[in-house]
């Protein structure tokens, strides 16, 4: 998310830019495993960089998402008090939200149920943050990267930085497994790997560790019935469990916040998932486990301090965008501009706009929820071929994904770009068809089709 947002922002400039991604695709870490809430800043601490970037980004979502073919809905959040103790905390939280610069109001239990009829009868009162929004964070990340690509940013995937060549406190080049890349400036937006990269570069010492979040995903028949993001009352320790309708109408329950050590571990465990479900169920009693279509986990990058953004104190041409914990979506637009200005201090061309830059992705027509699907077949007869029935993804949309500047390299990449295989049957009905489409478009032999990383093949 952060790296792709920065790449897009820099792609509007005269600088020559390369984006290196360790995983086989962009949007593989926290970017594809978050609630998709674009917060208006109510839970940020006033005066912090995080708060500043989030509140500066918040008013811009409609305009930005329109240029990235990314769904966004400003539906607002209710932080619901179920106990007297929680209710008593609301005035304090209201003051904090106002101090942070977010709009907020305390509403009665009855008024909260008016705003979200699915809310529990036990709701005593709630804080309402009307300017919070939900965004498709996967489409956003890939949109950022796709636009950067169209503007000539070279995106190298499966390219972890394994070494850094420096001289006199300056980075000369970074090494990936198959290349040595010279650079006048290096931006460290490596998320969970930011501390490792900093150590390789001889830069500031800090620690990044995984804060695991576990989630349930419920059928899009369920999320579509929600009017608001619903959460509990945050404590000083955690923001708690939310029920979040997504832009594709599924419902996310989560996340947990578990500090871990193993960065590669994205496993879920049943006791924790039960806790998540119970917490969400207390807010919304009509939730049912049988509506679950997926459970998953992702690691967001925790660090101390958070939001380590700026020039490295020892390495002259290293810029940090690290420790962007859970607000990476919410701060990404303003974050990217800030990082561009830091890069421009080192590479003046990064401050100069390119007049011919593409600033908008043309929206791809989709079959799902299209009220006049008749026009689609005139555009491309492949819209008549529905490959994924649950999410109504057609062969035309799949072809468009593979025809993009940054096409999928795996079935997971296809899911992220189109939602094929991501619906209520989780690929039971369309995985074979999607595999066929993958081979058709990439030339990968059936035995070599990657589910995710190249070694993780569909069959053997």
């Amino acid at each position: 998310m952060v790296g792709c947002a920065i790449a897009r922002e820099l792609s509007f400039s005269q600088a020559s830019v390369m984006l290196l991604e360790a995983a086989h695709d962009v949007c593989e870490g926290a970017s594809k495993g978050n609630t998709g809430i674009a917060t208006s800043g109510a839970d940020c601490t006033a005066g912090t960089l995080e708060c500043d970037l989030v509140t500066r980004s918040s008013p811009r979502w409609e305009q930005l998402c329109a240029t990235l073919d990314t769904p966004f809905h400003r539906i607002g959040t209710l932080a619901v008090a179920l106990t007297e103790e929680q209710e008593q905390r609301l005035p304090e939280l209201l003051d904090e939200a106002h101090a942070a610069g977010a709009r907020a109001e305390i509403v009665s239990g009855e008024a909260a149920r008016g705003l979200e009829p699915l809310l529990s009868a036990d709701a005593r009162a709630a804080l309402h943050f009307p300017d919070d929004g939900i965004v498709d964070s996967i489409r956003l990340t890939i949109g950022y990267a796709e636009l950067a690509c169209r503007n000539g940013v070279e995106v190298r995937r499966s390219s972890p930085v394994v070494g850094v060549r420096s001289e006199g406190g300056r980075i000369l080049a970074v090494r990936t497994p198959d290349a040595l890349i010279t650079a006048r400036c290096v931006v460290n937006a490596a998320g969970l790997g930011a501390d490792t990269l900093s150590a390789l570069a001889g830069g500031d010492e800090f620690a990044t560790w995984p804060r695991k979040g576990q989630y349930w995903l419920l059928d899009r028949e369920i999320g579509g019935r929600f009017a608001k993001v619903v959460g509990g009352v945050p404590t000083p320790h955690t923001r708690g469990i939310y029920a979040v309708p997504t832009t594709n109408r599924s419902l996310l329950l989560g996340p947990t916040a578990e500090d871990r050590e193993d960065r590669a571990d994205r496993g879920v465990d049943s006791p924790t998932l039960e806790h998540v479900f119970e917490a969400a169920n207390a807010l919304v009693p009509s939730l049912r486990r049988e509506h679950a279509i997926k459970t998953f986990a992702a690691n967001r990058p925790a660090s101390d301090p958070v939001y380590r953004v700026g020039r490295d104190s020892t390495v002259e041409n290293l810029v940090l965008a690290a420790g962007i914990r859970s607000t990476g979506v919410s701060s990404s637009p303003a974050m990217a501009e800030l990082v561009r200005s830091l890069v421009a201090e080192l590479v003046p061309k990064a401050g100069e706009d390119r007049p011919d830059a593409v600033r908008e992705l043309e929206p791809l027509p989709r079959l799902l929820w299209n009220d006049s699907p008749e026009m689609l077949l005139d555009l491309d007869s492949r819209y008549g071929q529905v490959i994924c029935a649950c999410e109504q993804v057609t062969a035309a949309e799949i072809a468009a994904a593979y025809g993009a500047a940054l096409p999928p390299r795996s079935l997971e990449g296809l899911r992220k770009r189109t939602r094929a295989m991501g619906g209520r049957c989780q690929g039971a009905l369309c995985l074979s068809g999607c595999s066929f489409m993958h081979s058709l478009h990439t030339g990968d032999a059936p035995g070599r089709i990657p589910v995710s990383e190249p070694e993780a093949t569909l069959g053997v």
Partner: protein
Amino acid sequence: MSETVAIVGAGITGLACAEALEDAVVVDRIPVTGGVNGWDDPDTRRLTGACRARFLLGTTATRWDGGSLWVIGPSGIERIAAAALVIAGGARPQGRAQLGIAGDRPAGVLPATAACHLAENGLPVGRRVIVYGGGDWAHRASVELLHAGAQVTVMAPYGLLREMPAGARVREGDRVTAVRGRLRVDHVELDDGRTGVECDGLVLAHGLAPNRNVDGAVLDGERVIYAQPLDDPASVAGAEAAGRHAAVQAMELIRQGGTR
């Protein structure tokens, strides 16, 4: 006023429903009738031949608004006026979330539907595969995987519902609670909390969930009838009975209320 009944699914259930009706349209995603029973099966042929229905095959139904069914296919888009909608989309094995299987998300874990299709085409999901389930889908997946050269262990949490092919090892009574592995599945954990069973493929073939993909008719819907028997093993007689029963319900609905 339309008295047409729209039927989604041209398997035995959908065909039996259509056969019992004067005015039906049968829609199916695949370009042949029969569903999991197969297009060249004698029962499929008998029922297909006996229907007076209009068939829209290779066509996907996408939306129901209580009075018309939207369908899309290579030949175009149609909004079919109908007095009732019968969902006869059959069933698939349950997914990981429904089965409560926690753990990692490596490659090598596939729904039986996909595992069968890939194995039929010579691509087994693994060399040492656990087929999780004890009914029809477990049987079919075992046959296909054995044929594709894989070692197969059928793990039937509630025992075998039908005989498994010779050559498959069978373990009854073990419930899989978690999948472990980073890139590819390495082993599964069982509900005793201790045992790990090594494998490089896990096929989900346990339990059944009805296939429902028509927006407006997924959990419920106006003038919608569900005809999706979840018997395991499935029988042609059971599917036919479910289809005929749905036809009676549809006719009753039309008698009672006409259309919108």
